[in-house]
């Protein structure tokens, strides 16, 4: 609390980028060169959604766009498509962050789950429309479910390690603005 509020906010933004780069790095480790018939959760997406739902001021839209565009390039996905869709989903959550904050965790989870489902379906729909090569449907569905199930984990890690919690109703930041 000793730091100035502006510095705090920029630290938060900086930590988001660091966390995202760390997650991409973990995904890139050459541990799994044998094809699997299940898919691990997309932790990057879950963490981004957790931060946006809880502290939208720490996740400016530019960092979302940059992080996910970089992930698209490094993870060999169609470039810019996931970044585009996730930007849309993040804006959807940002617009609802106020009502998410006043609801229970169950409500927050359901809202985020809807956003994750929408991201997966939109991704598949656009790839199908542009006749691009696609991953097997079962793998995408498994990854979608795993990401939804992993959301509480992402929330917990964000809270325990980075102190990202839901601001209480009526809580104001150091500028006197409602958070």
């Amino acid at each position, binding site marked *: 609390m000793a730091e100035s509020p502006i510095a705090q906010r920029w630290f938060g933004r900086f930590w988001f980028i660091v966390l995202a780069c760390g997650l*991409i*790095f973990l*995904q*890139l*480790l*050459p*541990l*799994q*060169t*044998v*094809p*699997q*018939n*299940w*898919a*691990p959760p997309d932790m990057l997406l879950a963490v981004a959604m957790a931060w946006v739902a809880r502290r939208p001021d720490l996740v400016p*839209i*530019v960092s979302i*766009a940059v992080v996910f*565009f*970089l992930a698209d*390039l*490094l*993870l*060999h*996905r*169609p*470039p*810019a*498509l996931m*970044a*585009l869709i996730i*930007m*849309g989903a993040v*804006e959807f959550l940002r617009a609802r962050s106020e009502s998410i904050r006043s609801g229970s965790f169950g409500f927050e989870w359901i809202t985020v789950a809807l956003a994750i489902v929408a991201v997966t379906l939109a991704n598949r729909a656009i790839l199908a429309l*542009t006749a*691009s*090569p696609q*991953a*097997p449907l079962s*793998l*995408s569905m498994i*990854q979608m479910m795993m990401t939804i199930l992993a959301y509480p984990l992402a929330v917990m890690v964000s809270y325990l390690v980075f102190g990202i919690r839901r601001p209480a109703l009526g809580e104001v930041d150091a500028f*006197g*603005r409602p958070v």
Partner: protein
Amino acid sequence: MARDRQTDEDYVGPIRRLLVGVLLLVLAGTFVVWRIDSPRIERFRAAVIDKVVPNMDWALAPVTGIINLVADFQSYQGLAQQNADLRRELQQMKAWKEAALQLEQENAKLRDLNNVRLDPQLTYVTGVVLTDSGSPFRQSVLLNIGARDGIIDGWPVMDGIGLVGRIAGVGQETARVILLTDTSSRVPILVQPSGQHAILAGDNSLDPTIDFLEDPDLVRPGDRVVSVSDGGVFPADLLVGQVVLGADRRLRVRLAADYERLEFLRVLRNQPRETIQDQGGLLTPFSAPAESDGVAEGGNG
């Protein structure tokens, strides 16, 4: 104070909306350009990977090593049993090695008698695997050698034993290998005793399927599968694996390469072959003198 904040919001709102709009447009544009002119964006992707991944090199190897160490430690109990098994297996292998050496000598003698010329141009560059594809949907690895080392798109990649995949995407210091198990991998193959040509099609499972087989009745599980030079994609006679019958009753190939441990990979320098273009002139006893010059010289030499 409240008034100030209000005006502040009034300025920030439209600027933010403009920013979001511009970002959306740029990203959508990138995707559309990728769909229309994929090679350009893929070159950009290769350049970005080339800049980013070698920076992580110092951390990649130790972290991977530690995680593997932990995984290996968990299986420590089975190690004594495994050791005994391996000793037994080694005993059998020694007998086979003797047989192989004798066969190799015999083979060399026969080749010598036949005056066979093996392809002298098949040399290789060895690279270390930096990263995997990072997603369960794509099967590829990134090597730490690239255009700097003379790597060219399309060259075949092997581990010590069998074919692993093909170079697809070359940066200055890195190159991506599409594994045979990737859904977009298609490689011409030859099933050996029956000599049938087919296509090995990856489907994101460990054993890729055999497609376009002319007569499946002639192929049995256990047949050897090697690459062919159809279409000039690969050099011929690289070991790919063995035919197996999958659980779905489709013919698949159990790959000879050890996909569990892809650490060091060989990229074969695949020089373009000389191709024979003309059909061959008709050799006639009486040809007009004006056009027969070349033919006559060739004949004399």
